[in-house]
């Protein structure tokens, strides 16, 4: 696929052209509510950029509080509509997911990898049309990371701050942020570049804003190496699946997660947590069947109607979360269900930290292996 470059000053034009091509644009913005001098806490979230005037609100190179998974898998969405008729009959109608061609801008390489992980789940024998149709209509443009956060650990799960898996296009700020290297990853990405080149705006007419980017690839590679070097958290997660396989009833996992309070913050901010609930919402005569985000941390998540709860204690629920992400998913779909974005680490109110849990388990396992070896020698 091709490489282009874009001058940083032309980024706004790029966004304008997306809007003038009649595409829906979703990008990170700061969302502070102001009413009469009262403000809420500032958050950075993915939001639709409806008009040209809103473009200046976009924060192009940032870390969002919530992941972008909701672009494909919203917190809450109707899946069918029902209407009660006279005589006990019911009418049902499919609900079509909104299917406007969309450009998702500003997700991170970790987020984008997350989309590809979710796609495996949502197409596991039964194709979930809601996720898959939206993914199919969306061009994902990720922004490579030049200054990862303290809690980031994408290299632990085999990614890099500038990897392109799951993205259609990858932007990387190079030359001190003066320009972007634009790597086109998929045909869908190439199609967007063509569309944008052809788009007419008030200021530019059918003039390409991109130039050849091949000369920047070398710069990116050097930068990528530097940024990886800067990252503090580098423990490789590769063998954690095999370790966890034998650790189901290990007391260390229990003590590592003892402080968990059982809220669902980690699941909600996670780009790959996919558990959901199905509930009916509406009036007695008419309503919708909803698919809502859920969390394996919640006590009721697995509780049987009859009262039995297979995961009756919080540590069992924590164990499920870690096992699912780091072991079960890998067995089924070849990859772990964690992309190293660190959102759960930043958001957990009791600072439960998946990276350090893995780190400690690995250390303990390495020591145990060493001890066994020592014993063998005796």
């Amino acid at each position, binding site marked *: 696929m091709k490489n282009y470059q874009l001058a940083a000053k032309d980024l706004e034009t790029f966004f304008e052209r997306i809007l003038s091509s009649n595409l829906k644009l979703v990008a990170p913005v700061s969302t502070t509510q102001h009413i009469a001098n009262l403000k809420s806490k500032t958050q950075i979230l993915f939001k639709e950029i409806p008009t040209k005037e809103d473009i200046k609100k976009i924060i192009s190179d940032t870390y969002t509080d919530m992941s972008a998974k909701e672009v494909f898998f919203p917190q809450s969405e109707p*899946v*069918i509509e*029902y209407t*009660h008729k006279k*005589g*006990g*009959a*019911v009418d*049902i109608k*499919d*609900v079509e997911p909104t299917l406007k061609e969309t450009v998702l801008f500003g997700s991170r390489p970790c987020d984008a990898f997350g989309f590809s992980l979710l*796609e*495996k*789940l*949502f*197409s*596991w*024998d*039964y*194709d*979930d*049309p809601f996720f*898959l*149709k939206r993914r*199919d209509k969306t061009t994902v443009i990720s922004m490579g990371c030049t200054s990862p956060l303290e809690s980031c650990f994408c290299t632990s799960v085999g990614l890099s701050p500038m990897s392109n898996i799951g993205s259609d296009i990858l932007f990387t700020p190079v030359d001190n942020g003066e320009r972007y290297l634009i790597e086109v990853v998929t045909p869908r990405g190439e199609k967007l570049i063509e569309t944008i080149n052809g788009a007419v705006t008030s200021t530019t007419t059918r003039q390409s804003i991109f130039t050849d980017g091949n000369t920047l690839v070398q710069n990116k590679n050097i930068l990528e190496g530097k940024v990886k070097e800067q990252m503090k958290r580098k423990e490789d997660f590769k063998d954690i699946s095999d370790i966890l396989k034998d650790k*189901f*009833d290990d007391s260390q996992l229990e003590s590592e997660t003892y402080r968990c309070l059982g809220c669902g913050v980690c699941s909600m901010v996670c780009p790959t947590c*996919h*558990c*959901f*609930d*199905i*509930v*009916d919402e*509406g009036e*007695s005569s008419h*309503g919708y*069947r909803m*698919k809502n985000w*859920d969390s*394996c941390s919640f006590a009721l*998540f*697995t*509780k*049987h*109607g*009859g009262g*039995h709860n*297979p*995961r009756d204690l919080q540590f*069992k629920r924590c164990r*499920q979360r870690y*096992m*699912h992400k780091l*072991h*079960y998913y890998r*067995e*089924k*779909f070849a990859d772990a269900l964690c992309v190293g974005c660190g959102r759960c680490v930043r958001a957990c109110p009791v600072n439960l930290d998946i990276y350090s849990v893995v780190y400690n388990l690995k250390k303990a396992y390495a020591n145990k292996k060493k001890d066994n070896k020592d014993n063998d020698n005796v």
Partner: protein
Amino acid sequence: MCSMNSTSTDKTELKNIYRPMLMKIISIADETKDTRTLRLEFSDQKEKDAFNFKAGQFGLYSAFGHGEAVFCISSSPSKKGYIECTFKKVGKVTVALRNLDIGDTVGFRGPYGNNFPIDNLKGKNLLFIGGGIGLAPLRSLIDNVLDLRSEFSNITILCGARSVSDFIYKGQIREWESRSDLKLVKTVDALTSPAEETEWKASNGRVGLIPKILADINPSANNTYAIVCGPPIMIKFTLQELEKLNFSRDKVITTLENRMKCGFGKCGRCNIGPIYICKEGPVFTAEELKNLPQSDF
């Protein structure tokens, strides 16, 4: 393990996998004071014709406006044109389903999950062991087997309940009792009155927990499959007893149930260890269960 068929299909043609089929309640049977069986018939002729399932599979049944609940299909696949489900009143959806009447509409998604390996059972002796409402998935298989009676060897049904009134399918149990081509043993945990005792004993009923009665009747493991379903605690002790009776674990079959929402491996709650009951179950051999983390049941 996973099929990536979505990469090749046209996404706009994807069907809504959350859309239930509409069914009408054609009869209602109260099994106990809180357990009911609904017989359901497809509203749509095309869906009716296309529908097929195997004993052991389950579905999601919905009362619109209240939600979905998961039950096995308790009728036999050899009985065409309708399906049955048997459920206990425990929460919002089951209460709502009970409030529906004959002629009312129920949603159904399914069939989901794997099934009892009926072909492997042919030519074998079959020992069915069902406790409480756990008799429901067994009934689908028992009726299926009885409709093909000549293809199987000796059949024994051991069924139990907490009390005489807690038996489901009372009429059907009487029917099975009257047959000469199978042996039926029934037991209750306890009897509630002397009158009940007299009547129970007169009908050859026994008293005692299922694992104990199983030891008493001492079935031969030779050329025999045991198919077990009931509450988790009953399954646990029954499997232990079968082991004592020299049943090999790959000839002991059980069916599990966990809380489910989707039925097809996406909502994330029914797994025991790495196994999704909805997709890789609900039917397992005791051998398969042995490899799953026991503290996750």
